[in-house]
């Protein structure tokens, strides 16, 4: 945790209200996000209990699995989910704009520009918490290798049509959410945590209710009191007033309400199966429907408060103006969405269970680049974030007090003006350290020459080394002038592309050699737990 975040948290404790840690919004928010509030069954990994899902705040769609251990019911749930999610995704797939991408020409081996389609916007999935993101990934993993009866008539338990496709999309979204700064799939607690510091630990911040209680406490109450109430307060029946954001449910709910309801449902189902005539069956069907409705109401009662809180969170975030670089990062999300759309259309197989060596290395390198880019861009977009970097000695701001023209000692001397900046910051400047400032959106580099006077004077002498044009005299406006207020960073503003890794079929001997032809992966084998 950085020093400025620690300070913000301490301030939050003393004032009883969360402190902003950003002045702009650093993540993209869609006009029409799809909010997904899933619940899972305790003790059954990957067995969904139900969900609220939809793009309309006032009309969420409730999906419920009355007996989460029943494969047929689970498939029905997933098919319903696909019916909500896939049309939403599709609605973005066809609106495209023309874009250029450089590709390697297979014949000449040269990099050439190719005209391609880029989706004009991309669908955005919002879940309440980090655990929700993991659950999306898990759902994707459990679905994408399933076979439908159409794909494989022999398959013993065919999945409903479109369920494997939903699995591929959820997998893609889950994987994309691992890229720093990406917004295709976002967790509300993470979004809020990026923009506000509460007076509780980051672990406690994963409780959406408690986190919101700090950010917007009810009138007359401090954040700490409201958060404690959100976390612990129970009604007369012993149920939490503010259910956890899921997907895990509260044990008191599981034991006192859900388990008996599911048992009643099971009994009704067994009774229906044992009905001896039509009249009896009608009666018992009525009982079964009633039992199912009861479970639906239970699931609704636990997801609706979270659903509302996610939208409250969106309101809070929308009130912030968007950061300058957010659009650029969202464009990369759009590329990611378009790329997967194309892979699906081209009939490529689902994402493999494990990445091969080259893919894994490429993904890691890409994410490291994105992380560095994100940190730089957030600081450049937001003075409050930059203040944190300044406090950490990674940047400094100050006034130009002197500019002396100087030239490089080469055959064609280029301008190398010496700029003296007075700053109250204490940057960790090493000998000849490189620093950067933003000049018309592009970084201009300078070199730390030394201090003028004592350290307390805060006079830093810098030599500007680029972005002054080709001539002997620097271009107008490219050299700071006396009186300018400038902010220099010790970190680079833009990331260099990494080295190109070998193609997977050229994986070297140190990494096990080429992975071989990709074979279609079989679905997970059926275990006893699957057929309870």
């Amino acid at each position, binding site marked *: 945790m950085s020093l400025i975040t620690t300070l913000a948290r301490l301030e939050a404790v003393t004032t009883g209200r969360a402190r902003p840690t950003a002045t702009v919004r650093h993540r993209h928010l869609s006009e029409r996000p799809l909010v997904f509030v899933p619940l899972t069954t305790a003790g059954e990994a990957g067995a969904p209990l139900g969900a609220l899902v939809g793009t309309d705040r006032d009309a969420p769609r409730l999906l419920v699995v009355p007996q989460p251990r029943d494969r047929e019911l689970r498939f029905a749930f997933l098919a319903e989910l696909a019916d909500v999610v896939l049309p939403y995704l599709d609605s973005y797939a066809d609106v495209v704009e023309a874009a250029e991408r450089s590709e390697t020409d297979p014949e000449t081996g040269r990099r050439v520009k190719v005209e391609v389609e880029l989706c004009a916007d991309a669908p955005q999935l919002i879940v309440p918490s980090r655990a929700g993101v993991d659950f999306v990934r898990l759902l994707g993993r459990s679905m994408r290798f399933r076979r439908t009866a159409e794909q494989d008539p022999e398959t013993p338990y065919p999945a409903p049509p479109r369920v494997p496709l939903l699995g591929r999309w959820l997998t893609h979204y889950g994987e994309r959410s691992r890229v720093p700064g990406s917004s295709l799939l976002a967790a509300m607690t993470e979004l809020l945590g990026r923009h506000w510091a509460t007076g509780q630990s980051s672990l406690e911040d994963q409780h959406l209710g408690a986190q919101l209680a700090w950010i917007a406490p009810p009138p007359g109450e401090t954040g700490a009191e409201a958060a404690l109430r959100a976390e612990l307060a129970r009604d007369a029946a012993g149920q939490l007033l503010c259910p956890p954001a899921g997907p895990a449910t509260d044990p008191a709910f599981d034991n006192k309400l859900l388990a008996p309801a599911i048992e009643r449902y099971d009994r009704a189902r067994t009774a229906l199966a044992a009905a001896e005539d039509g009249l009896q069956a009608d009666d018992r069907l009525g009982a079964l429907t009633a039992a199912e409705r009861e479970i639906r109401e239970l699931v609704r009662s636990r997801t609706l408060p979270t659903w509302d809180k996610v939208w409250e969170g969106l309101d809070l975030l929308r009130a912030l103006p968007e950061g300058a670089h957010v659009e650029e990062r969202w464009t990369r999300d759009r590329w990611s969405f378009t790329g997967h759309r194309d892979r699906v259309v081209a009939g490529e197989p689902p994402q493999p269970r494990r990445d091969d060596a080259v893919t*894994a290395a490429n993904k*890691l390198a890409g994410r490291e680049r994105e992380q560095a880019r994100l940190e730089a861009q957030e600081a450049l977009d937001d003075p409050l974030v930059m203040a944190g970097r300044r406090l950490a*000695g990674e940047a400094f701001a100050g006034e130009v007090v002197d500019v002396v023209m100087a030239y490089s000692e080469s055959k064609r001397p280029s301008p190398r003006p010496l700029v003296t900046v007075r700053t109250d910051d204490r940057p960790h400047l090493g000998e*000849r350290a490189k620093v950067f400032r933003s000049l018309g959106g592009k970084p201009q580099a300078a070199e730390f020459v030394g201090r003028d006077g004592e350290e307390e004077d805060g006079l830093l002498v810098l030599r500007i080394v680029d972005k002054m044009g080709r001539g002997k005299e620097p271009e107008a406006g490219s050299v700071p002038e006396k009186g300018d207020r400038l902010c220099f960073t010790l970190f680079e503003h833009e990331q260099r592309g990494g080295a190109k890794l070998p193609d997977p079929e050229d994986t070297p001997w*140190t990494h096990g*050699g080429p992975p071989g032809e990709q074979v279609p992966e079989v679905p997970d084998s059926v275990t006893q737990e699957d057929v309870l």
Partner: protein
Amino acid sequence: MTTEAAFDPGTAATRATDAILRDTLHGSARGVVVDSPPGAGKSTLVVRAALELAEAGRPLMVVAQTNAQVDDLVVRLAVKNPELPVGRLHSSDADPYDKVLDELPNVRKSAKAAELGGLPVVISTAAKWAHVKVDEPWRHAIVDEAYQMRSDGLLAVAGLFERALFVGDPGQLDPFSIVGGEQWAGLSYDPSASAVSTLLAHNPELPQHRLPVSWRLPASAAPLVSDAFYPYTPFRSGTGHGDRRLSFAVPADGSGTDRVIDEAAESGWGLLELPARHTPRTDPEAVRAVATVVRRLLDRGGAATSELSPDPTPLTADRVAVGTAHRDQAAAVRAALAELGVPDVTVDTANRLQGMEFDVTVILHPLSGRPDATAFHLETGRLCVLASRHRHACVVVCRAGVGDLLDAYPSTEPVQLGTLVKFPDGWEANHAVLAHLAEHRVAWRP
């Protein structure tokens, strides 16, 4: 006693080196792995192997991890064999290499690999090599500091050579990534794991060697470092207890700092223990204590006697280093030293001190003053690097109560299936070092 008498460090080290060179030059395996404890002559081995490969007429590329390491290797090669043409492949940034190289007539420097073609030895960093494309791979490569290289770094350069000698210290800091790589944990080619673990997972039959003697660590330090950090691959010191001495012209003034210096000079270790307290990372009192110890070390006219020369050499600023866990701590110590008027003392983090050697080190304990013990602060390699940079003595500055802190924070990192569990874990190693330091404790209230 007979085994002790029969163990001559020089002979044992020579035997190990000979076996390594035999496998490298005449073996059939595509790779040879050498584990080297701190100061066991790793660089000497790399230089020797490079010279012998060059002599045998095999074109060689050398991969090191940092520019400083590359420049150091080039200089060492030039010292050993000034006639040998060496290529230094460098980046196209400003000041890409140490200016010292300009004075070496047979060292050719270029940012383009093609301009260095045909030279017997070409040296560069892994990052630079990753951008090189060749039609014909090099017949041989030496990968230095291979345990500090990431698996994806090796993936990028492994296509450049046919076979390679991998040399490194398994006990030092593992490579790290600024983003999480848990999704690949357990895969043999986990890109954030070390290059050697990937290499051995795919090629378990490769010959593995170990250098058995640390020439840097004194007899007082080798057993502790070996037991705490290398319990299954022990090594010993190349020198005996009487071989090295540290003495001071100015007697102690009775202060805690002077007492801890005397204790360290006498026994090789000193623990300056400040009163227990939770502090920010740049604990002003501890930082000041570190700076004061350094100041007194230099003021008291230290002299180091060792097997290298018959006469004592004065303990100057360039022979002393300060090690910390974080960069802001290093910056704070630098500022404190500047205030006390002490220039030219190396102050850096464990990461950057890797591979360096000094007569005396002063370290700020990674857990000093902390309310919690995170995986970062418990990392075995961090403490190992900090505790194994010295030839004579090491002074540790620490708040009291680290033992209790360790007991309150046992290792709770999730165990990933398929990964090699590293022994010892940081918790255990920290306790081992702390138990030993307790015998050399000087309590001090600043």
